[in-house]
């Protein structure tokens, strides 16, 4: 697809922006099995391959399990590897996701968030990437097309950082972000190449002068030591995310952190929410602020590793917080973000009241009025100090 730019600005869907970022990164290998709503990422990237715009080896495989397996093989051979998927596709990659992170392979995956079956559904929720939250992948969430594009470019540096060496998943909302056109600022190919740099894997299966064994068995003598090492690495990656964001801002002017606070500092009540629904919530915040209600928003950008200290610090003075999850941790204690955030706030001296609201599953609309209704509930909780309903579904 030809992209027309005016002063570096272009109108692009989320999928086109991801495919364009992949073109600019020019990975060595891209094994892929397209699935709605991420199909266009691979469709457009395949055009770049066919047109000779990239030197990437595009491997068309027979399933997502094979796609991730091929990613692992190529990464073990020392290649810079990228792929994209959604929903059932990510679910089919499951066992390989753990192998990618356990073998410390810096693979980059775009997950265009889509609900999991059953019932079968192609629209947005976060049950796919939330299901992969313990797989050892770093997870970045994106509110807009611009952020998805910027996150993907930063993901390469984060994954390949020598103190990290872990796979990264960049998440954006299916259809809402993947198929809606936004005006975004693109970087030049040289800027992207200069930022991501060249990738030189420490060990590669193709270096026959220095043969290595990868993916070997590890029994009780040392399995836990490898897991300890991996756990330390993903915890450390938080600093790398900030370091990479800082360099990104220095070069290109757009600022990213571990999370975004919107009118949060002096807020008494706040909604915590991921991805595109944060935009809707910001409109609600503005409307309520006009009426004098001290409402605010916190949108986590980094969910894995979970920046519990920073989030607790940002929310410790709030009176009431609602965590809105676009995924249910079936019969767990609230949604996944709620569960971890509430736990992060446990050690705060004056613990805020925190409630769980599950919204928008399978692409159900989340509107400004839904956010306002939550804020009104929070207002009552803040005034009375009493929580009527700790967890419930909204937008139903």
């Amino acid at each position: 697809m030809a992209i027309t730019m005016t002063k570096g600005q272009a109108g692009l869907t989320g999928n086109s922006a991801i495919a364009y970022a992949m073109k600019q990164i020019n990975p060595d290998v891209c094994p892929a099995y397209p699935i709605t709503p991420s199909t266009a990422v691979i469709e457009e990237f395949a055009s770049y391959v066919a047109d000779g715009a990239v030197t990437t080896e595009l491997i068309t495989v027979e399933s997502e399990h094979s796609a991730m397996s091929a990613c692992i093989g190529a990464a073990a051979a020392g290649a810079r590897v990228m792929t994209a998927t959604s929903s059932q596709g990510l679910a089919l990659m499951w066992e390989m996701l753990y192998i990618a992170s356990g073998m410390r392979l810096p693979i980059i995956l775009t997950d265009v968030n889509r609900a999991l079956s059953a019932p079968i559904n192609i629209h947005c929720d976060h049950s796919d990437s939330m299901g992969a939250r313990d797989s050892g992948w770093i997870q970045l969430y994106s509110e807009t097309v611009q952020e998805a594009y910027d996150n993907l470019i930063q993901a390469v540096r984060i994954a390949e950082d020598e103190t990290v060496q872990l796979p990264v998943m960049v998440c954006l909302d299916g259809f809402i972000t993947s198929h809606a056109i936004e005006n975004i600022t693109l970087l030049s190919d040289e800027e992207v190449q200069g930022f991501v740099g060249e990738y030189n894997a420490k060990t590669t299966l193709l270096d026959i002068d220095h043969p290595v064994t990868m993916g070997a068995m590890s029994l009780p003598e040392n399995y836990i030591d490898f897991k300890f090492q991996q756990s330390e690495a993903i915890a450390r990656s938080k600093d790398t995310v900030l370091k990479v964001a800082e360099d990104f801002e220095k070069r290109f002017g757009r600022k990213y952190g571990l999370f975004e606070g919107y009118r949060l500092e002096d807020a008494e009540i706040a909604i915590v929410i991921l991805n595109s629904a944060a935009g809707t919530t910001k409109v609600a915040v503005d409307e309520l602020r006009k009426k004098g209600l001290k409402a605010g928003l916190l949108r986590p950008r980094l969910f894995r590793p979970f920046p519990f200290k920073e989030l607790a610090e940002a929310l410790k003075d709030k009176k009431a917080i609602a965590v809105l999850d676009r995924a249910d941790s079936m019969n767990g204690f609230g949604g996944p973000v709620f569960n971890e955030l509430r736990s992060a706030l446990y050690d705060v001296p004056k613990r805020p009241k925190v409630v769980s609201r599950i919204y928008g599953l399978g692409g159900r609309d989340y509107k400004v009025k839904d956010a306002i209704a939550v804020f009104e509930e929070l207002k009552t909780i803040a005034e009375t100090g009493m929580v009527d309903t700790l967890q419930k579904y909204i937008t139903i």
Partner: protein
Amino acid sequence: MADKKAVPLGGVIPEGGTADGYSTGGWRKLRPVLNKEKCTNCLICWVMCPDSAVITEDGKMIGFDLEHCKGCGICAMECPDKVKAIKMEEEAD
């Protein structure tokens, strides 16, 4: 590994062919036994053995590497019907 925390990144072993140092012969319940008189040295067993445990010398089948043979019996199964030079026997016997 003296320092338990100093394990190689991602479990990479900095050398190849490490399976050679791992004895899997102890897993064996059935042991392959070669009848040299019947064997025609077609080497189908050498081709088929999943553990590279068939030993050859000068293009001739001379026996098994019992340090690595797991006793799967593929060699005995693949040995041509007219020859059947390999028999699987109970280790216990």
